[in-house]
C-alpha cells in the first residue's frame, strides 16, 4: 500500500521526493520513521488524515501522515 508523508519544520528534509512511501499492510507511523531514517527523539507528534494519532496506529492505503518536531517559537 502507499501512504502520503509530510514532514514539517526541521524534519522537512525527510519528506520523500514524491511525498509517498510504499509499505506493507499493517504498517504504523513508527515503521515509517524507520523507513525514512527519521530520528525518533526528534518526532513529538503525528497526525493521520489530520487527526492526532499514536505511533502504533495502523495505517491504511491512501492515508496522509503528518510528522512534527518540537515547535515553540514566538
Amino acid at each position: 500500500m502507499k501512504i502520503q508523508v509530510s514532514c514539517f519544520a526541521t524534519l522537512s528534509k525527510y519528506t520523500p521526493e514524491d511525498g509517498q512511501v510504499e509499505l506493507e499492510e499493517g504498517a504504523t507511523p513508527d515503521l515509517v520513521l524507520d523507513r525514512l531514517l527519521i530520528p525518533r527523539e526528534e518526532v513529538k507528534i503525528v497526525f493521520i488524515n489530520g487527526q492526532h494519532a499514536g505511533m502504533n496506529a495502523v495505517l491504511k492505503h491512501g492515508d496522509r501522515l503528518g510528522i512534527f518536531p518540537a515547535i515553540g517559537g514566538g
Partner: protein
Amino acid sequence: MLFSSMETAWGYSRPLEAGDFLKHDSFTAALKRDARLDSDYPFSIISSPCLIQLAREHGLELFEAQSICLDKHILPERYLRNFSSISFSEQKKLADSQVLLVGLGGLGGYILEILGRAGVGGFVLADGDCFEDSNLNRQILATVDTIEKPKVIAAKVRLESVNPFCRIQTARAFLKAEDLPGLVKDVHLVVDALGGVEFRLVLLRETSRCKIPLVTGFVAGNTGLASTVYPGGKSPAMFWQGKNSDGAETVLGNTAPMVSLIASVQSQEAIRILSGKESGLSDRVFMADFETMSFELLKL
C-alpha cells in the same frame, strides 16, 4: 507585587459616589448632543477626538467614557469598519473584556496591535525581555528606537498611541508559575505568545487550573500553528516536549510572514471568544506551512 504600572487598575479605583452619577448624566447628555445619526448604521456614531474631549471636559477616564458611550448605543467611529463583522453588542463585549498577553515579541507585538485596534478593553502585558537587533526582522514593536529597551514599555507606548481607550497593566518580568493566579484573576482570556517550549506547559497548566481559556501560537521557520485550549479540553502540549533548545525555531529561526500570520489567527480566535462567539480552534490546531503553501485544521 509584580505590576510595575498600577495607575490604570481595572474598573474604578474607589466606590462610586453621587457626584459620579451627576458627572455621568451630564456626559451622557453631551454625548447624545454630539453623536451623529447615519442612515447606513443602526446606531449613532461619535468621533474619537470628540469622545476624548468630552471625557476630559467631564473628568472621566477614557475607558469609562467609552463604556458609557457603548451603553448608550453610540459607536466610537474608530470601530466603524469592524461593523458588521463585529456587531454592536459584540463590540461592547470586546470593550468590557480583559486579556493577559504573555510575550511581546514576534507573536505578541502583532497580537497587541490587532486586539488594540479591534477594541479589546483591557490588557495585562507580561514580558521580562528587552528588544535586540535580531528581533528587527519580525517583531513589530522592535524599532531602532526601542532596541535594548523593555518590551513591555514599547508595547504600552504603542497601545496608548493606537487606542487610548484601552486600560493597560504591565508586568516586566519573565513569569513564574506562582505569578499566574494573581495575573489571571481579572482576565477573560490568556494569549500565549511566548518564545520557547518550556514555559508554555506551565502557562497551560495554570490557565486550566484557573478555568480560563488559552489561545496559543507557536512557530518555527516556515511552519506555524495556533490552537485554543479550554479548561479540560485537548491541548497541543505534545508539540512542546523537551527543552527550549529542542524547539525547531532554534535551528530554523522565525520570519515575519509566518509570525504575523499565526498572530492574526490567534487574534481572530481571541476576538471570537471575547465577543461571545464560539471558538474555531478548540480541540483543533490551525497549521500553516509556507514551504509547501499548505494550510490545514488538525484535530487533537
